[in-house]
């Protein structure tokens, strides 16, 4: 083990984690099958020795979720970890929090570690908000006296004061998440490992969470923060790691890593339109309905991800429902690449409701006329909502990235700032015109 200086609080050296493909099937094995296998094993061994093969599964039955990951974190640093789904971010946190063991390499961590891989770990519906606060706190590694000291603060932060002695199964999902996050946010370890927990609740609560996270970082705590929310990474972290296929491929300032990541994302995302298995937003708890396709189409209905400035944006949406449902509305949010919301289109505001049934997928065309978006790259989030209040039935963050082409096709770069490029007419003012202008004013 190598020596590290006093202020290095996390030292990760060639950390690797291998999963066996189909490892989950082992859990469905019966004891009977296990016994048979144990009996057969010696014969297999003999067979493989005779055949001069090494016993055991071959290398291609494994996947490396982490491969040779090395980095160090100094005391007080706030480091973001970004990467595509399946790049190994969550596995890295799972190894660092000791939920799972590494296969190779090692990591050294100094100080008390707190982790937030999920909010509401261990929440029990039968118990009251108060009881769950203590229980959840204990799971997160807080002692009773710590929770006692922070109890009022936690309750106030969550905003569920009135219902603190009501069993949490009577809570709305929003209240539930707020209380759960409130407990987690008051954890005060030396090192905090966070996985995407800011993505819960409504916008106001998310802002509150982000604010709380900022406080945590100002207090000089060391934080490792996994997120898909680039804005949050940008605001909280000075440094970021970019992961890809189980390895750290970039370790630099947050701004430059985010830039590289977004470029990678734009390159490969436009190609897929099938979102049936895309990652869902954490607020989606039901699976009655799922978006299966979401794409931008041209005049002929053919998939595209580039539109000319001023063209109608034609979205094609497909969803499959497991049950008969009415009163379904679709909502969409268009954001710039740095996550500024350009517009939110709510089906509800247009009184457009759909019914869905398991027999046939729901297919919707949504045309946005007179869009005068400034040339650039945009991302679209799509939501299916049945109830006005409460969590969406389905929500996919940014499955679609499209580009509005520059006004002059030869320009690859657009100058200027803003969200809109209005339809304009330029006219040189001739003496006669100047006269008329003066007259009118």
């Amino acid at each position, binding site marked *: 083990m190598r020596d590290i200086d006093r202020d290095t609080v996390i030292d990760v050296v060639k950390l690797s984690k291998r999963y066996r493909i189909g490892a989950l099937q082992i859990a469905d094995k019966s004891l009977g099958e296990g016994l048979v296998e144990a009996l057969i094993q010696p014969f297999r061994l003999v067979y493989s020795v005779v055949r001069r093969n090494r016993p055991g599964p071959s290398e291609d039955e494994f996947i490396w979720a982490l491969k040779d990951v090395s980095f160090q974190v100094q005391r007080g640093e706030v480091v973001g970890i970004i990467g595509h789904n399946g790049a190994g971010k969550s596995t890295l946190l799972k190894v660092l929090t000791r939920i*799972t063991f590494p296969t190779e390499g090692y*990591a050294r961590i100094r100080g008390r570690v707190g982790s937030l891989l999920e909010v509401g*770990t261990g929440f029990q519906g039968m118990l009251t908000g108060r009881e769950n606060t203590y229980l959840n706190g204990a799971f997160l590694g807080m002692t009773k006296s710590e929770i006692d000291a922070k109890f009022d603060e936690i309750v106030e932060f969550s905003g569920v004061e009135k219902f603190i002695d009501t069993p949490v199964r009577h809570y709305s999902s929003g209240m539930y998440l707020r209380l759960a996050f409130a407990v987690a946010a008051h954890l005060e370890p030396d090192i905090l490992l966070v996985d995407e927990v800011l993505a819960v609740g409504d916008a106001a609560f998310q802002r509150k969470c982000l604010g709380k996270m900022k406080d945590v970082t100002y207090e000089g705590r060391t934080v490792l923060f996994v997120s898909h929310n680039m804005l949050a990474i940008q605001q909280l972290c000075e440094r970021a790691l970019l992961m890809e296929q189980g390895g750290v491929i970039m370790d630099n300032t947050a701004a430059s890593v985010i830039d590289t990541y977004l470029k990678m994302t734009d390159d490969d995302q436009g190609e897929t339109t099938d979102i049936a298995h895309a990652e869902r937003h954490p607020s989606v708890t039901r699976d009655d309905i799922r978006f299966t396709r979401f794409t931008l189409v041209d005049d002929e209905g053919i998939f595209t991800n580039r539109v000319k400035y001023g063209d109608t944006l034609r979205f094609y949406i497909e969803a499959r429902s497991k049950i008969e449902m009415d009163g379904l509305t679709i909502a969409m949010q268009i954001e710039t690449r740095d996550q500024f919301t350009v517009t939110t289109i709510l089906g509800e505001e247009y009184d457009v409701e759909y019914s869905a049934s398991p027999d046939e997928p729901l297919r919707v065309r949504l045309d946005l006329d007179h869009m005068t978006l400034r040339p650039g790259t945009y991302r679209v989030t799509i939501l299916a909502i049945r109830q006005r209040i409460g969590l969406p039935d389905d929500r996919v963050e940014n499955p679609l990235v499209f580009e509005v082409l520059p006004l002059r096709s030869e320009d690859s770069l657009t100058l200027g700032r803003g969200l809109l490029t209005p339809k304009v007419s330029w006219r040189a003012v001739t003496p006669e015109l100047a006269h008329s202008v003066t007259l009118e004013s």
Partner: protein
Amino acid sequence: MSADAQQSHATEREIIIKPAQGWIPLDLRELWDYRELLFYMTWRDITVRYKQTLMGATWAILQPVANMVLFSIIFGRLAKMDSEGLPYPLFSYSAVLPWAFFSGGLSRSSGSLVGNSNLIKKVYFPRLVVPLSAVITGLPDFGLAFLVVIGMMIYYGIYPASLVVLLLPFFLLLAAITALGVGLWFSAMNVIYRDTRYIISFLLRFWMYATPVVYSSKVLDEPWRTLYAVNPMVGVIEGFRWALLGQGDPPGFMLFVSTVAALVILISGAYYFRRMEKIFADLS
């Protein structure tokens, strides 16, 4: 940096995360550090159980009493089993009591890892806490059922012979050790083989008849009686009857054999559990 902070850096804990290979130490110190979590998990399970079932505490009494009535009719009345001169209902109830604690603890702890898989995948804590808490959860039930035995003793006018009654907690501990030891083996196996629970219900039924619950161990001659005590529950129940009802000879050497057997099961179970721990999070 303040002097205080300096101090805390010097003493701060260092964790080394490395691949798990072979036999893993038990790390009882860490288990001790997590005693509050053990308390909360136990408290959660107790609270939920008593809140959830309509009859709540009544169940804790009804089950052993029903068993005692059934045994008294079948083995006491019909089969006329020898009950060492004690009224048969009291004879059987004094055994049903620790047996119910043991079998409840064993089945709960065997299913505990699978039942808490959501936690195991999301947060780190010494996994030993889970089956341990499952065994301790049975204590209030035991306490309630114990009130019945006090009532029965008053009714029959049979009292503990001496201060040996103070040894009861030791026999309860021995039952807990056995339940935990076997529970550790099964809870780890249950993660890999999901049909383990069927084996447990079968095993418990079999085990009860291999334990002097409905009959007296006097039916066996030496050296078979001592050999019989390799089943730790033999020592528990013999000891329980002796300490509580004040009859018969102290179980002596049988108790020693049972205690050694229980400790062997516990220690081997704990190491097996630790060894399997590395696959829990990936499987469950």
